[in-house]
């Protein structure tokens, strides 16, 4: 394969995922600048490693995997520099109780309608990375379990259980945020 062909191949297989990779990078980092940096680094790495990529296999999963590994490396670095608590050590509080189950459908709908972009960002960033990644990939990017399992390198059953817990935490946080935005507390809590 000539260099030109290789570059065309890279365009066709990897570059087409730029928007999806950016969205995911933004959701993982919570910041535009960091996301751009992450995407740039991801493409540089993918470009370097393109020799290793087997044509015809899942280029999207491959690229997302590089994105996530790059992200984790950056997180690792910051942890070392600032001594932050490793994200995975912070287990979300996920009791058996599901306090919002009694919400009337209309109330739930109204609350979701009040959720702001900043609330989505904050709620996602509050999730430990292990949960945030699978929720973003499954719900925002619409990827299948099999592909997520490949990207994150976990069994399919783990994808499902992380989604289960991640979504429950996310829903709780989003509902709380929406309530803070001024819907009547009585209405919001009525059915619990």
């Amino acid at each position, binding site marked *: 394969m000539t260099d030109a062909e290789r570059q065309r191949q890279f365009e066709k297989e990897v570059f087409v995922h730029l928007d999806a990779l950016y969205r995911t990078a933004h959701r993982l980092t919570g910041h535009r600048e960091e996301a751009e940096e992450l995407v740039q680094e991801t493409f540089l790495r993918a470009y370097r490693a393109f020799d290793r990529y087997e044509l015809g296999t899942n280029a999207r999963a491959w690229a997302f995997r590089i994105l996530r590994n790059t992200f984790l*490396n950056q997180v690792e670095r910051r942890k070392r520099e600032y001594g932050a608590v490793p994200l995975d050590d912070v287990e979300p509080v996920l009791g058996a109780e599901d306090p919002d189950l009694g919400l009337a459908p209309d109330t739930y709908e109204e609350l979701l309608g009040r959720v702001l972009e900043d609330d989505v960002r904050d709620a996602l960033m509050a999730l430990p990375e292990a949960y945030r990644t699978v929720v973003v990939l499954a719900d925002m990017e619409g990827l299948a379990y099999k592909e997520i399992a490949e990207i994150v390198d976990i069994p399919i059953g783990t994808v499902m259980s992380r989604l289960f817990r991640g979504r429950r935490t996310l*829903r709780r946080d989003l509902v709380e945020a929406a309530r803070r935005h001024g819907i009547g507390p009585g209405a919001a809590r009525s059915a619990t």
Partner: protein
Amino acid sequence: MTAPDCSEAARLITGLVDGELGVEDVARVRDHIARCDDCAARHRMEARLKDFLRARAGDVRAAPDLGVRVRAALARVAEVEPAEAFRPAAAVPGRGPARTPAGGIFGGQTFGERVRSRWLPLSVLTAALVGMTGMWITLETRGAGGGASPFMEALAGVHYAATQAGIFQVRTQDPEELSAWLSDHVGHPVTVPALTELGLTPAGGRVVDIDGRHLPMALYRDYVGGRPDLTLVAAGHEVAFSPEGWHTAQEWGRRVHHARVRGEDMAVYDDGQTLWILVSTGGEDAMTLATRAVADAVSVVSADLEPAATIR
């Protein structure tokens, strides 16, 4: 077909919402939902949340020029000329162009020929190793000593001293200026790579004494802007990697490898940001210890010690 209880149903609901359940599980969980108000609510809310998140996904969008910027960055890396990138050995008086062994990753071409004929930055990175007149040794503070060898201990000591105070003897972001300064102060030609495509910028350097040798040390800052990385450029070695050895180390940056370079055992580790190379002068046992020390220092999950990957 056993009926699921609520806690099992709650988990199955996740799979149901995602359309990932088998026929039998779909029937089981639907049957349960039909008879359980709580689980019906769980299902409704989870499905609605998924729709909600999908609808909000588009709230963040890449800047219109991001694609242009990324392409430009790729083009810069792909088309970079070796003279601009790393000052190949040929540029240093008294030395010929660096050649790798026949059958090496550069197939016997010179560094320059190869870089010009290939656009993969992987080559550029590797070429930096091959083309420059030395090897790099990058160390982390934690666990780097490990008692692996006098060389290792000396390195750890130097690192400690360097991080305490007076880390720089010269400060410059210009790799050529740094090369010139180091060459003057160690008495042999030194080429400091720019490492731009690794996200690193030269910050300065100093000369260190290890094992009775004066070694040039180049320090880099990463783009996160944190502490400097410590890089030693030791003269007198040419480094080559077999394609397998390189790629395995490169792949996802989670492995430590054993390489032999001109009779010296080395641990090679790539954490995806920086290529870490550790030299041990103490033979196989020290090599194993050194590898473990690297593994500890950089928090590697699994360190695989492979058969010698490089033949020289």
